[in-house]
């Protein structure tokens, strides 16, 4: 078929999409493909689009290769689709860009009806080959994936040596698997060379654009950050997409937190009976002076809200990791969103406010998670790290993790026995330093002094129960003071802005960051220059108000329906809603620069129109 139709041409700038069935072990092969390209010095982003089910359903893996270093999901159709799932063949064919390529298993021939004329079909009888090559059905299954990777090497001009070294690293521990895997790669490689004109017009060429970056998922980074941050107590309950945060924390602890002398654990991890218990444990530990956290997603945040209110009001340090997914309710557990902003910022009944951190890549997951434990101790309140499924579960090319060995944990205002002896008037809630943060004591510190009764009820400065209006108001105002004071501790925003501000300002956070550089470039192509402001923490500070004041058009870009961050900005900074246009993307897939730019342009022209009219 694929005679005189024009072909996609691209070097180091295209998308390869893999269509597989989940539970068939395609993940590691696809991962090998992405890593190989990185090892050739070319930036890559990889998005796993998987079902909320364990086995037998369609799953996709979208690899964007970009020497321009644009690492958001590109969106749109792909130049090359590896279609290994009969179930989804129809939509997979539709997902090929005109002039693009479909690599499929030709053991069974494609049903011809409605086949597109504008794409190239690369048939390879992979199943047949596997049945010939392997007896064990499990192997027939697994090596399929390795074989098509071999074929891709030939088609896309991937250095075979790179793949071999990858296999070597991957099976360091199971050496006997190396040869069969390389053999499978070769099968595919040779088949492709023999039957297709390799390489294709879309291909890769070695570059040196990776520097010291690493490829890792955010949850691994978060778990590791908790280890470095000194977390010792974890209460958790499994929920996608947060589960691997704790699993990674646990596996690093098994390596790094075992007392060499006794073989005993320098940490305690409990799979709780539910999320209420999970955060209850973290709070109990925080109250008792250990660094503690829990990790959860959507529904867990709802269940934790009563306890979050207690921790806010009783002023107990605790770290909560929220790996956001598509809500409401159970929603789409395997899709990404940034839709817990409001439910976290104001979690719990009554006048409650919480500190939020917004990492945008794994390096920052590591850094902000570690920092969260300092902040929790310094501010004696919950710190919620707002990750999401895209960040947490997809591999990202990110700066390597960094740790300064001179850095010291900030344990905040905790009184020692000595301190207590030196003080003659201890009151747990006395605002000694006038910053709203009071001195606390830990159980067991002093035989005579410093003991107090922690409660979720109203109390005076000496921690005594009170229903007196003045005491109550006094305490509530101090909590507000503390919250205002907090912003000075929090990570600064990332601002890109010329000497004279551009007309347009983009406010964004978290994984939306990956699409911003590209968006700015695309806007420039349209003659629109834009400054950018990346929020890294809540509460905000004057920086953000200034940015808003300095720009005529502000776009708040976020991945939820209700423009929750915009609400937070307006509410906390008294910013004019008229000035803040929401660009919301909430279909569960990571946001793209195309979507951002299209919507900004649309809105601007609409704007102009109305101006013309009125």
């Amino acid at each position, binding site marked *: 078929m694929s005679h005189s139709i024009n072909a996609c041409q691209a070097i180091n700038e295209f998308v390869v999409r893999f269509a597989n069935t989940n539970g068939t072990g395609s993940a590691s092969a696809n991962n090998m493909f992405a890593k190989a390209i990185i090892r050739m010095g070319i930036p890559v982003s990889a998005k796993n689009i998987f079902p909320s089910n364990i086995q037998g359903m369609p799953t996709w893996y979208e690899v964007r290769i970009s020497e321009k270093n644009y690492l958001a999901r590109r969106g749109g159709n792909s130049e090359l689709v590896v279609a290994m799932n009969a179930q989804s063949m129809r939509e997979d064919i539709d997902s090929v860009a005109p002039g693009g390529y479909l690599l499929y298993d030709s053991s069974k021939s494609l049903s011809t009806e409605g086949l597109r004329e504008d794409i190239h079909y690369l048939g390879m009888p992979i199943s047949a080959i596997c049945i010939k090559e392997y007896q064990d059905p499990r192997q027939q299954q697994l090596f399929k994936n390795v074989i098509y990777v071999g074929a891709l090497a030939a088609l896309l001009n991937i250095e075979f040596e790179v793949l071999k070294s990858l296999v070597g690293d991957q099976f360091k521990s199971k050496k006997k698997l190396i040869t069969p895997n390389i053999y499978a790669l070769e099968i595919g490689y040779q088949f492709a060379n023999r039957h297709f004109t390799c390489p294709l017009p879309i291909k890769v060429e070695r570059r040196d654009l990776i520097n*010291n970056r*690493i*490829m*890792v998922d955010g949850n691994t980074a978060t778990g590791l950050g908790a*280890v*470095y941050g*000194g977390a*010792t*107590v974890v*209460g958790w309950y499994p929920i996608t997409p947060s589960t691997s945060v704790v699993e990674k924390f646990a596996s690093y602890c098994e390596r*790094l937190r075992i*007392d060499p002398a*006794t*073989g*005993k*654990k*320098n940490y*305690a991890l*409990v799979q*709780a*009976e*539910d999320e*209420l*218990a*999970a955060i*209850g*444990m973290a*709070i*109990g*530990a*925080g*109250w*008792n*002076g*250990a*660094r*503690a956290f829990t990790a959860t997603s959507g529904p867990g945040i709802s269940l934790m809200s009563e*306890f979050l209110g*207690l921790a806010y009001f009783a002023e107990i340090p605790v770290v909560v990791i929220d790996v956001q997914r598509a809500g409401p309710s159970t929603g789409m557990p395997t899709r990404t969103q940034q839709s817990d902003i409001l439910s976290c910022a104001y979690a719990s009944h009554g006048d409650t406010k919480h500190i939020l951190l917004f990492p945008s890549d794994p390096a920052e997951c590591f850094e902000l998670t570690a920092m969260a434990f300092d902040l929790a101790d310094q501010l004696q309140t919950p710190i919620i790290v707002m990750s999401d499924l895209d960040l947490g579960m997809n591999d990202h090319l990110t700066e*390597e*993790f*960094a*740790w*300064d*060995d001179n850095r010291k*944990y900030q344990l905040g205002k905790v009184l020692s026995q000595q301190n207590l002896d030196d003080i003659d008037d201890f009151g747990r809630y006395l605002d000694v330093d006038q910053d709203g943060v009071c001195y606390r*004591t830990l*159980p*067991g*510190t002093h*035989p*005579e002094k410093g*003991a*107090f*009764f*922690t*409660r*979720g*009820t109203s109390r005076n400065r000496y921690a005594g*129960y009170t229903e007196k209006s003045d005491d109550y108001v006094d305490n509530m105002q101090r909590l507000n003071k503390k919250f205002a004071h907090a912003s000075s501790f929090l990570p600064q925003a990332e601002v890109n802005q010329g000497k004279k501000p551009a007309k347009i300002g983009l406010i964004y956070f978290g994984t939306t960051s990956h699409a911003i550089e590209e968006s700015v470039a695309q806007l420039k192509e349209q003659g629109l220059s834009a400054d950018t402001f990346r929020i890294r923490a809540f509460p905000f500070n004057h920086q953000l108000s200034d940015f808003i004041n300095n720009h005529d058009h502000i776009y708040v870009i976020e991945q939820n329906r209700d423009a929750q961050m915009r609400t937070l900005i307006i509410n906390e900074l008294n910013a004019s809603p008229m000035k803040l246009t929401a660009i919301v993307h909430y279909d569960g897939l990571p946001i793209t620069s195309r979507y951002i730019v299209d919507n900004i342009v649309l809105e601007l022209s609409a704007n102009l129109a109305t101006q013309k009219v009125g």
Partner: protein
Amino acid sequence: MSYIKSKFHHPRLPVNDLGLTYRDYEGALSTLCAGCGHDAITSALVQACHELSLPPHQVAKMSGIGCSSKAPNYYLNKAHGFNSVHGRMPSVTTGANLANKDLTYIAMSGDGDSASIGLGQFAHVVRRQLDMVYIVANNGVYGLTKGQLAATADKGVTNKAGELSLFTDIDLCVMALQLGATFVARSFSGDKKQLVPLLKAAISHQGFAYIDIISPCVTFNNHSTSTRSYDYVHEHITTAAIADFVPVKKEITSDCAEGACEDICLHDGSLMRIRKLESDYETQNPMKAITDIEAHKKKGEILTGLMYLKPTASHFHDINNTADTPLNKLSQDVLCPGSRVLSSINDSFR
């Protein structure tokens, strides 16, 4: 209004091994109703801790929400306390215990707090064998919310407001036995002679200790038709076995008839002397304990005393193999792997 009582010490007050009088174990003035059973538990606890010479500040007082959960404010004012949220004390205590295994965790809960909203957490903290004393002040009602029936109320009784208890009661002793608690007892706030030694035993027990203390609510569940009133309990109480706690030094005088006594040696060399009041009583048979409890219920009797004791119990930290240093005392250099390790971790992601 929980101010501290006069610090005046009567010169002749008896002191314990730490040179402390029971006054040193008291708390704020109670704001509970005059005659509330919970206040009797408070004074029993004060006495027990004093007699055990516990350093007060080495105790953590945990509770949920309820009249009973307020009680920790009324004893051991030299100890930190945490009056958490309704029904969730077990998880908070678990976290606190994970953070510092060296304190003594004495938790006070109510039957609403533990048998209704907290039942799941109750069951799971038992299962995890946390080293703690879990007290439920069992009054058959929700005191603080003015007398609704608790799930522990006997079927067929009516509360003061006249509401009928439609369903079989949940017996937390039975559930604790069932889920592997290593110390289970039931007592009565009106019987200090029985309660104090049981509390001392529970506190001395290493592992999870549950005590269900029938503690009449004089305001909402002390009426004539109640089965948790002082009168009713006094009339229907029977005791399987009394436990006397014998500290290490104190040498044992054999003051009890053949077979009627069983001495159980505890971890620290101290003794539990069990006086069997029912001939066929067995200290270490949970299934039998359950059967006995049910049997007495059928007879309209309330079985109290020590139900079960596993002297050589293991608890969470043994099982988890936690470090000997409390986790909240580990320093940064123990906790933080540092930059060298990190760079090798980085390499694993290239």
